[in-house]
């Protein structure tokens, strides 16, 4: 069965989603979703192992040979993104049955699990496929499913946030599909590797340049690159915390993956960065994202909105790494994909624990939280430290590699900016910590810890933050492997 792992990666959750609708029982669908997500996680672990030991895995859907049929092509980069998506899904899902979200939707919980599984399927599909049009289809599956998930938020504004996400997501997807159409017109193929081989023969004419522009802008909308990030804060703020945790840790990561895939594999380093000056604008936008979004985060009242803006800033770091166009920079980007998924997942799950006790996420209402919910707040603080990049946390590893890459690329200014923007993160994390530990709880503030079912997944992510802050061979090893392949790939 190991030969069929690439198909199983997507099919397991794809089959489970409609099965949820037929099964309907709240507990039964939960177990179905849990088992299939864990199975998907196991598959992605096996795939990563297979890729690291024996190189690229290629799978022909329906037995049709590669450039004509749809090919699933797994290299180190895909396998790593698959691991992130399915791993976060596997950790977040056990959080759901006791979360506020499921208590609210009640009898209709099976529809939530169906949408969740479809979202996982879509994101995994985007990451695994080697076919440009298939990529677009999976992107649509994931964004429609995440739109449903966002709309389940407790506040009525979740509906407008979901609607905005739908519109902006559709615009992004439209840009991507126009780009894919133009590429197809120029090269006559949809297979990503085949496109990469045929592009030089087109002489990089205007069609190809237009396709490039459409694809990059489309991917930038999907990954919420500043200034195209405006949909993200609303969506993450009003979505249920569980959903914010999952989407913040996976959806934008898959967007970054799409950007990297098109820049480095499909169009190739020569076209993307030598013929067209893409690196400088990306770098500028990344630095702006780091500073503007972090500054905005400092002035937020709501913790959730603060974390959402912080996500925009963190995406800046990922794009900054790849805009250096070196193996080191790309490694730092890919490592940060992984580490940011761990820290933002943990932070949003901690918010989910708080939501179990009180409905307000205003920083002022978190006064005395350190005594009222000690375990939750300790998890939040640990996640915050990782976000800042304190040594012994995963965040430090990302920043360390990013700064080294900037120095190696002879950009000391960029390295300094990374350090300064991290200081902004200190300010916004500190505001929450100060409220939670140094202020007296207001009268009538609810007290009591969140149930273990919520705390365990949160602390698992925190433990992983610490583990991968010390033992870095997995993320760094895989990222370096992927970065080397990407820089060597293309013309």
């Amino acid at each position, binding site marked *: 069965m190991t030969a*069929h792992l690439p*198909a199983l990666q997507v*099919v397991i959750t*794809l*089959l489970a*989603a*409609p*099965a*949820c*609708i*037929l099964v309907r029982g709240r507990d039964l669908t939960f177990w179905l979703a849990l088992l299939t997500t864990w199975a998907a996680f196991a598959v992605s672990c096996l795939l990563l192992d297979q890729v690291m030991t024996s190189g690229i895995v290629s*799978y*022909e*859907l*329906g*037995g049709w040979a590669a450039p004509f049929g749809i090919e699933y092509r797994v290299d180190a980069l895909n396998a790593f993104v698959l691991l992130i998506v399915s791993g976060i899904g596997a950790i977040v899902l056990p959080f759901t049955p006791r979360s506020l979200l499921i208590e609210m939707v009640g009898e209709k919980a099976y529809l939530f699990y169906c949408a969740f599984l479809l979202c996982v399927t879509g994101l995994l599909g985007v990451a695994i496929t080697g076919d440009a049009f298939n990529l677009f289809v999976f992107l649509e599956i994931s964004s429609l499913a995440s739109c449903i998930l966002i709309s389940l938020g407790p506040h009525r504004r979740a509906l407008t946030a979901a609607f905005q996400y739908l519109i902006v997501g559709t615009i992004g997807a439209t840009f991507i599909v126009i780009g894919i159409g133009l590429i197809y017109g120029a090269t006559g193929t949809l297979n990503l590797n085949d496109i990469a081989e045929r592009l030089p023969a087109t002489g990089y004419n205007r069609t190809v340049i237009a396709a490039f522009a459409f694809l990059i802008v489309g991917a930038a909308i999907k990954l919420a690159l500043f200034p195209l990030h405006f949909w993200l804060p609303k969506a993450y703020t009003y979505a249920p915390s569980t959903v914010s945790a999952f989407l913040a840790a996976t959806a934008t990561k898959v967007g970054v993956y799409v950007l990297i895939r098109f820049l480095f594999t499909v169009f190739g380093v020569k076209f993307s960065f030598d013929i067209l000056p893409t690196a400088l604008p990306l770098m500028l936008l990344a630095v702006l994202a780091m500073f503007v979004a972090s500054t905005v985060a400092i002035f937020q009242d709501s913790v959730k909105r603060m974390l959402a803006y912080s996500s925009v800033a963190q995406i800046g770091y990922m794009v900054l790494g790849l805009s250096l166009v070196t193996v080191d920079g790309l490694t730092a980007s890919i490592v940060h994909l992984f580490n940011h998924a761990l820290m933002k997942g943990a932070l949003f799950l901690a918010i989910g624990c708080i939501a179990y006790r009180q409905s307000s996420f205003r920083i002022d209402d978190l006064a005395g939280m350190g005594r009222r919910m000690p375990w939750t707040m300790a998890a939040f603080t640990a996640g915050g430290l990782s976000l800042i990049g304190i040594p012994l946390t995963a965040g430090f590893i990302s920043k360390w590699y990013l700064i080294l890459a900037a120095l190696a690329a002879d950009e000391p200014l960029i390295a300094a900016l990374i350090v300064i923007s991290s200081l902004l993160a200190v300010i916004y994390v500190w505001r929450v910590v100060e409220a939670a530990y140094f202020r007296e709880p207001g009268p009538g503030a609810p007290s009591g810890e969140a149930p273990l079912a919520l705390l365990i997944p949160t602390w698992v992510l925190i433990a992983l933050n610490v583990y991968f802050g010390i033992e870095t061979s997995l993320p760094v090893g895989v990222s370096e492997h992927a970065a080397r392949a990407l820089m060597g790939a293309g013309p």
Partner: protein
Amino acid sequence: MNDLLVLRIVTKILMPFILLFALYVQFHGDYGPGGGFQAGVIFGAGFILYGLVYGLDALRGVLSSDVLRAGFAIGLLIFAGVGVAGLLLGGNYLDYNVLSSDPVKGQHLGILLIEFGVGVTVASVMISIFYYFAGRGR
């Protein structure tokens, strides 16, 4: 709606032909124009016409929302299930060659089943969309 005698009678006469035509488009799709999506839309349109003329409650009596919801799922399960059947019979996912001893017959069977799955889901979704729009404000 009792005064619209012509509409009611014509709808009753047309219904079987619309559904039959949908089935023709469905199962003749591999020889001529057509296929699951088109057939699903025509099939759904037949029911929507019935709903428009006889009212939403009459249509709900024929097809409840629960049945439709199961329809979404069953269609997708048929599609994905055929793919898994290919896997279990020793081919790749969605490889129809292995579905029958003769690869050509296998391809034929595979596409027929897959298109049927598409048809079921599309028809259910079409009618559901009509339910949601027509049922608003009730």
